[in-house]
């Protein structure tokens, strides 16, 4: 099950407590009932279980239909989805089907005095945060990316499993999954890294990128990147840090040649210590760093690596 599902149980618990209501988890698939325990251990009071061979693999219409029935029967106030490929496929269609709103990629959620879910998302071009509510329509639905919230430590719970009585549509084979090719896990996931060294457009060339990687090796760090570095071919998609990529929470983040637009920096704000190296004194990244160095990285990286070895 996706990591984000557990993270959402964490924030879900807080929201449910604040509202004085219960926390449910929806588990859909085939032969998945043994997974309900994990969800209870992460805080679910009830697991709505839809176990049916029609629910494997994921097909939009089956899941939208199942969810719509569950929403109709149990009428939750709030539904949280992971902002994954599946979440982006399911949540909006479901919102349109049941006639409610959807706010995607929330970076913060809380309940206000009126008991309404306050939803914060990033604003245009990274100038700030937009606050959104869904005042009248129910349920209030949001998607949240992995890494925004933390997975709770598992602890034995008293949650129960409720089998969902679903009436699924006939599969007309309008959409068929032919095959699945798993992605090779390239070692530790960036979002779990303790130290991250990231490079941006300011690195300039592939040769310069090698210096970034050398610093990472000296720190035993994972290498991250911004979109421009990706476009230049120095890094790959899963190394991208930021709103459209990975949220990291290392104890140390060093950003080199990175300007610091918000859709990158939102992905690093939970780092314990942020260091920025950029030769442009006006670079935005200095505003969100603990320590800044205004210098061409080529002039200083070798010295940093040397000092680390002493």
């Amino acid at each position, binding site marked *: 099950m996706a990591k984000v599902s557990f993270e959402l149980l964490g924030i879900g618990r807080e929201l449910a407590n604040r509202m004085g209501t219960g926390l449910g988890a929806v588990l859909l698939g085939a032969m998945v009932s043994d997974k309900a325990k994990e969800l209870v251990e992460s805080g679910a009071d009830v697991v709505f279980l839809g176990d049916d061979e029609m629910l494997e693999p994921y097909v939009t219409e089956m899941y939208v239909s199942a969810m719509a029935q569950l929403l109709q029967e149990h009428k939750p106030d709030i539904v949280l989805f992971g902002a994954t*490929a599946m979440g982006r496929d*399911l949540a*909006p269609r479901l919102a349109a089907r049941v006639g409610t709103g959807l706010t995607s990629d929330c970076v913060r959620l809380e309940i206000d005095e009126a008991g309404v879910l306050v939803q914060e998302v990033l604003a245009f071009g990274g100038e700030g945060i937009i*606050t959104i509510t869904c005042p009248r329509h129910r349920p209030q639905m949001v998607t949240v990316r992995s890494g925004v919230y933390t997975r709770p430590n598992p602890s034995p719970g008293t949650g129960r499993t409720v089998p969902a009585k679903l009436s699924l549509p006939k599969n007309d084979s309008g959409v068929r999954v032919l095959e699945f090719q798993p992605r090779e896990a390239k070692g530790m996931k960036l979002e779990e890294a303790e130290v991250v060294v990231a490079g941006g457009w300011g690195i300039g060339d592939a040769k310069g990128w090698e210096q970034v990687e050398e610093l990472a090796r000296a720190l035993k760090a994972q290498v991250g990147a911004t979109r421009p570095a990706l476009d230049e071919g120095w890094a790959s998609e899963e190394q991208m840090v930021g709103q459209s990529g990975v949220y990291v929470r290392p104890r140390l983040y060093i950003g080199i040649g990175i300007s610091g637009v918000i859709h990158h920096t939102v992905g690093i704000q939970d780092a314990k210590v942020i260091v920025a190296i950029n030769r442009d004194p006006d670079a935005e990244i200095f505003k969100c760093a*603990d320590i800044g*160095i205004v210098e061409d990285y080529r002039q200083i990286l070798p010295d940093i690596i040397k000092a680390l070895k002493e």
Partner: protein
Amino acid sequence: MNSLRIAVCIKSVPDPRYAGKLVFDTKTMVLKKEGVPRVIGTMDLSALEEALLLRENHGGTVTVLSMGSPNAVDCLHQTLAMGADEAYLITHPSMAGADTIATAYALSCALVKLAPFHIVLCGAYSLYGSTGNVGPMLAEYLGFRQVTSVSRIEEVRNDILRLIVNIEDGLLRVEARMPLLITVMREINVPRGIPILGIVAARDKKVVTWGLEDIGANEERVGARGSPTRMVNFHTHEVKRKGEILKGQPQEVAKELVARLRKLAVVK
């Protein structure tokens, strides 16, 4: 299937390079975007490019639609110059303040007026706000099947498409039957620029502007009135870090940095 009728839905967004000029009026709860040039969202460009490629390979027409304020017309001119056959701007004062539900509704009305379509293409998500919701919502209102996060269209054979879907864990090979709504990922293609001949050819093509009555929409379901969600506030991203700049010769600065990081126990 010889001739495909393809629609592309695009959103014009404020050019991120000028985002500093955006002002949120807390009295009217409106984000003022005057004076900020508009560009087509990155993934929307890929959606348009994919439509043009489909037309090149299979024949047919490419119709671009956008719902927005009148100044979105420049972006639609751009799509004509890139090679779209026709472009429609759905705009009306009542449509202001629309969230993704109200936007998808308005677009669905326009698409029904222009029906039939075999394929509707949208971007999988955008960088700012309403990230990719419109596609699936639109598919729901149209009653189309959907395949999202598509990184490659492998084949079109009669009324069946074979697609590669890019999900976190890997790649899916999927077959889907038309009519189909597809949302595309940035990596699906590299959008073309605007060829000089494109600008010349586009001079004869006009962006058609459609209002509420043209698309046959219910006024209660568009704009702010038709939006279950609404913007209630805007604030700048507060950051609480010191931002101390280390000064001096590189060698000294490097030593100082490492000393501090050791003191903070983030480095050995």
